[in-house]
């Protein structure tokens, strides 16, 4: 009986920006980003619901885009920016989406929530970069279409994202208006 087939391959070094911090980590080459985050780095906020790209619970942002950590090899994020739910709040303060989700009851069991928040934050950030942004329920539903939730029926999730998106746009307009009056 040989043991060759169970010998793990040699780890490779991956440098990445993780939640704004430069991070160097040795990782088995067959590991997914999800395995790296959860088992390699102890960032268990990112959840595993299916491990095959169907449920969206492992959604993280890679260079700003929502991506499935279970379908991304860890070595693929070399030199890229990875954001997880642990990096969403700033300076101990929750992100407005986190605050809104908590307030309106958008999380029941909370298991889909980290992934949902990452998709929602990508939607809100992308919206604020549009020329003439409008908040539409159907756009939010589409942005969250890859994230399954089994508890809520999505109603309160859509409500929370809608509130925050509108708030962000309103704030943007408030900031833009005095500037427009400048000669």
């Amino acid at each position, binding site marked *: 009986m040989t043991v060759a087939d169970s010998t793990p391959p040699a780890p490779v070094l991956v440098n990445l920006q993780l939640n704004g911090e430069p991070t160097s980590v040795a990782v088995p080459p067959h590991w997914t980003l999800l395995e790296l985050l959860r088992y390699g780095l*102890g960032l*268990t906020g990112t959840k595993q619901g299916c491990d095959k790209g169907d*449920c969206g619970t492992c959604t993280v942002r890679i260079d700003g885009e929502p991506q499935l950590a279970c379908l991304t090899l860890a070595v693929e994020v070399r030199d890229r920016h990875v954001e997880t739910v642990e990096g969403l709040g700033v300076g101990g303060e*929750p992100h407005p989406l986190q605050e809104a989700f908590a307030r309106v*009851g958008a999380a*029941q069991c909370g298991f889909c929530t980290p992934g949902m928040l990452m998709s929602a934050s990508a939607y809100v950030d992308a919206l604020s970069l549009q020329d003439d942004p409008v908040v539409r329920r159907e756009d939010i539903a589409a942005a969250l279409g890859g*994230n399954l939730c*089994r508890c*809520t029926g999505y109603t309160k999730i859509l409500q929370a994202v809608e509130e925050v998106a509108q708030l962000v746009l309103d704030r943007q307009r408030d900031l833009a208006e005095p500037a427009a009056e400048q000669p």
Partner: protein
Amino acid sequence: MSAATPPENASQGRPYAVVGARHGKPDALDAMAGLAKYTDDIALPRMLHAKILRSPYAHARIRSIDTSLAEAMEGVHAVVVGAEMPTRYGVIPWTPDEQALAADKVRYVGDAVAAVAAVSEDVAIAACKRIVVDYELLTPLTTPEAALAHPENKIHEANKHGNVTKQVQLAFGDVDAQLARADLVIEGHYQFHGSTHGALEPHCAVAHVDGRGLLTVWSATQVPHYLHRELAKVLEIPTHKIRVIQPPVGGGFGGKSEPFDLEFVAAKLAIKTGRPVKCLYTREEVFLAHRGRHPFDMHYRTGFSADGRILGVDAKSILDGGAYSSFGLVTTYYSGQLLGSPYVFDSYRFDSTRVYTNKPACGPKRGHGSVQPRFAIEVQLDKAARALKIDPIALRRRNFIGENTTTINEFHIGSSGFLECLDLVEAASGWKERHGKLPRGRGLGVAGSTYISGTNYCIYPTDLPQSGVQICLDRSGRVRVFAGTSDIGQGSSTMIAVVAAEELGVHLEDVRVVAADSDLCPVDLGAYSSRITLMAGNACLNAARDLAGKVRQAVAQKWGCHKRDVILADRRAQRLDDPQVWMDITEAFVLAEIEFGTLGSTGSYQTPREDVHGEYRGGTIGASPAYSFTAHIAEVSVDEETGDVKVENIWCAHDCGRALSPVLVEGQIEGSVYMGFGETLMEHHHVMPSGLRTDGARRDSGPGKEGLLAHSSLLDYQMPTSLDTPNLFAGIVEKPDPRGPFGAKEAGEGPLHSVIPAICNAIFDACGVRVDALPVTPAKILAGLRAQRVGGA
């Protein structure tokens, strides 16, 4: 509040301070920040990973198992097989037909046979492939018809009656006479397909034995108490040497409400290796573990008077149970026991047979056993309303059972807001203006239902309390509550905090709830039967009132007034008659501690002695302290070219007695409606009767390939996404029941039931097609439309 209105919080003579406010969950930000530690988030030093070898055959005898190659692999620490845990168990003590690992026989594709603990999952998976099992193939029985036709081919040799796991025949009143005198008899054949829970967190267990020999098991379970009992039984360790902890659970819906192989496996391997062991299901294993909604085949005859009164119901059902009993004994009773309310039946009888088949075991899914019959009876009512030319809502109102009454099968109904539920959805949907006036292809349908708030009788016979709560007050003004309750996302810890905060005059965030840890908390039976709000809520209320009394008495002594003139609210103790006189709640707690010593109390909930239930075999099953009521209206559009059904809107009104946390109640209503919608139109837990795959290709026509799961992934199973889900309206109706804490009844399961028939009735309203065999598919709609044309309709 007018002077004439009695105070809402009667024990304190003041309005509610916390109950009924639109709060979220006090601990919600933990989940938001990724801080909540679910079972798979636990990593212990030197922890091993376990994987389970599963049967590739639906029905086979195990001749031998050779684990030597697996054990020889580097990185493998232990292997366990069924012979090491031979004791049979089952969540229902009367039907112990399961083993942690199959010892002599496998009964479905996926039955657990052996398990390996290794340094990593990869090594454990590789080792499972080295285990050699010699199977003797038996003829698989994958349909109830086949299982009933072949009693000699017993799936469980020890079973008394062939492959029948349970038969219930109960009759109330003279059904034959009533049907004979009926002006209209509607006869229908209904089929309810199977569906599964689909909680996003896969089952997971971690086990560890400490230096004192205490076995600790962390598990994603919704019944830590039953797990505790069954672990002791199967592992042959006394309960005091086992600690069960339920970390935050990522959804249950009934899918985690009994012990599973992985908990025994992790525990046994931890004992064998002396190291912590984790076992995590893959998504495919979650589908195999199942315990979801039973497929039902139902024949119903319902007699009506010309003015639409229900005279008699004759129901005959076959339940496809799968490979094990699970909760099936209870399911078989629920298939008929909850049929009556919210209506008056002059007579009814049911004959239900649950059958073993070589498929993943069915069990309790949200609305356990009563969702399928509810579908049948509510479509029967719709058919009657059409035939008698009575508005379907009016027909339901006409048959309303009323309040403070007893059903024909002897259950006591306390408060009922069913009529108010009908009024609410009727108004919200614009029923009066729109029903019957919509263009072809668009329709409205209505249905109603009822559900239990816990069961008066425990799963195992006992006179012990069903729920216990312990409360401590500390000098910082905080309240600590220790409760056995299982928060699986429904918010039971929030409910406990609301009750404690309401009585003790603190804010929600001042209450720390420690739950579901058998070393720290009194017993609660678990998150099933919609029991926690009523039972643990009452236990918490009892404990909190006891402590609040002490605090008020200590403050009253200082102020020289009577205890009843002191109220606790909003982090203050205050004079009832003079709001200017108050002190901080912390000071009040300190005064009480000086007076009475360390402040603690306990409360429990026990089935009241005056409980009403049927004096017949099975008459306790379905008996509940209080019943919730629900009404749904669905609006659909049907594309007659493609057969596609789009559900546009669903309005649901639910009588939960008192909404302790309206935001959470709405969440339960919305989630229930969503789940029922999904299983009406999209979901099907389906096992192939032959070797056919979902794509129609023949996988292997050789023997032993029957019983394959048609969907091993969430992609194939198709739960609705945010893009599929219709607009959901959640309306709360409050008819306080004296048996609930502050009048509260259940909200977690009732609102699922009638959404399914409401959608089907709306489809008929839209295009004249009855889909009596679920799920609704375009092919069934098109077949119905074709039949209309052929019939010249």
